[in-house]
């Protein structure tokens, strides 16, 4: 690991100033950053420790019923916050399906939004990777790419965003609060991550010094609480990133869908909101025909970036299954295997 200067600012303003210098990076839990630094993928000159900044570690309820999640709130604390989990059960389920209990105890909300892709070519400094080293090429294109993107990819990068948390959050219209050199601003989470285009080295719209201070979930999210699920296919039962995942939320009125929310994970370099698919569900009866139609629309633009055509049909089926589970109703308690495909839509466990 390359050496670095360590600074611990006392205020958000100090943190922004300290991180605006070239080569600076924010340090929260470090569960992704330290890993990247050990591998020589991230080589910051200065770490700006934000873990003790005042006021960033709180989950607050706004007067209208929305939530404001401080950037340094730990994943486990958010998932187990009773009021939050009741209003946003798919977010809690997504959090509990991610990483391990040890990592969830440390990893933060802001850090989750900023985690880098797990593309193995990004991690291997001997490989060409436009995200790690702009202009060097993309060895994933001709490499082991069965897990890579099927939506929104470009010739320069076919990596995916690994976040579970961001998938239901983007479905619920979450907003990112950012403090920068020019002051405070807000960006919808949907517009926060960038598709690769010809500049895959930039993961998000953040500028140097920009600090995520909070993520807000609007009050409208609670309307989906009774019919909200997250479903995640992994290559092992637990402690693995998504091959494909989906968040689904339904607002039902007399057996018909008044409003639907759908987002996909593991398919693109950003959490993928499927707005056109949502629109096809408005007014439709909640059932397999409508769900399959929505899934077809959600994946209409998908195309394989390598040996991963299977992910397109898998994603369609996961959308249908997530919608089916959502229609059946949010369980009182998150399942023993959160977001697992080993749970039948009836609630029985298929895993033995």
């Amino acid at each position, binding site marked *: 690991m390359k050496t670095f200067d*360590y600074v611990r600012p006392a205020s958000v303003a100090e943190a922004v100033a300290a991180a605006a210098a070239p080569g600076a990076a924010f340090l929260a839990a*470090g569960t992704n950053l330290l890993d990247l630094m050990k591998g020589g993928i991230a080589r910051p000159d200065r*770490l700006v420790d934000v873990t003790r900044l005042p006021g960033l570690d709180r989950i607050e309820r706004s007067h209208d019923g929305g939530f404001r999640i401080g950037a340094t709130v730990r994943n486990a604390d958010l998932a187990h916050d009773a009021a939050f989990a009741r209003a946003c059960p798919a977010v809690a389920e997504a959090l509990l399906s991610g990483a*391990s*209990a040890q990592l969830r*105890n440390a990893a933060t909300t802001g850090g989750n939004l900023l985690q880098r892709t797990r593309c193995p070519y990004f991690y291997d400094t001997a490989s060409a990777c436009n995200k790690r080293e702009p202009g060097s090429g993309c060895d994933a294109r001709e490499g082991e790419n069965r897990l890579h993107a099927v939506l929104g990819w470009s010739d320069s990068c076919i990596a995916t965003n690994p976040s579970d948390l961001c998938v239901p959050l983007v479905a619920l219209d979450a907003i990112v609060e950012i403090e920068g050199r020019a002051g405070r601003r807000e960006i919808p989470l949907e517009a926060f991550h960038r598709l690769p285009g010809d500049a895959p080295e930039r993961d998000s719209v953040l500028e140097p010094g920009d600090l995520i201070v909070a993520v807000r979930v609007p009050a409208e999210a609670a309307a989906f609480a009774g019919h909200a699920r997250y479903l995640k296919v992994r290559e092992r039962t*637990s402690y693995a990133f998504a091959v494909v995942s989906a968040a689904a939320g339904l607002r039902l009125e007399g057996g018909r869908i008044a409003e639907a929310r759908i987002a996909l994970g593991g398919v693109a370099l950003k959490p993928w909101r499927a707005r056109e698919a949502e629109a096809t569900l408005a007014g439709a009866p909640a059932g397999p025909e409508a769900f399959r139609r929505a899934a077809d629309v959600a994946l209409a633009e998908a195309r394989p970036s390598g040996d991963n055509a299977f992910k397109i049909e898998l994603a369609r089926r996961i959308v249908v299954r997530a919608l089916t589970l959502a229609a059946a109703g949010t369980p009182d308690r998150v399942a*023993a295997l959160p977001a697992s495909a080993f749970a039948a839509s009836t609630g029985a466990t298929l895993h033995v």
Partner: protein
Amino acid sequence: MSLTATFTVNGVRRQVDLPDPRVTLLDLLRERLDLTGTKKGCDRGQCGACTILVNGRRTNACLALAISHDGAEITTIEGLATDGVLHPVQEAFIAHDGFQCGFCTPGQIMSAVGLIAEGQAGMDPERVREGMSGNLCRCGAYAGITEAVLDAQARLDAQDRSQAA
């Protein structure tokens, strides 16, 4: 900049100089404080062998920068037994053969202590397996590990009840 940090490790206050900020909690414990019970497996947060309690919560020591945890209360496997009497989780791992080679065991045991403290799994073996999935065991002692965690959970519950009575 000269960096100094203070930790309470297994109940003992330790002040350490950290002239190089790259030191993780794992390397601090093993290389500076001679507490080698905490194991370095993958050193990348994938195996759980380095699991310790930081302020009572189980955490991967390999991905925690020591200087960032200045002031923390740390419990390692060396701090579990009191006056030569094993912790109920340690006893349960022995009783149920929750290990073979033993390398992952300190991490497994610390993770189990953290899991029981979190109180989310109860006596459901599926929830225990899921809650312990951040600790890999290449010998495959998982069946014994799950039994040990459930047994320890039951023993600690009984202890709590008798103390409350």
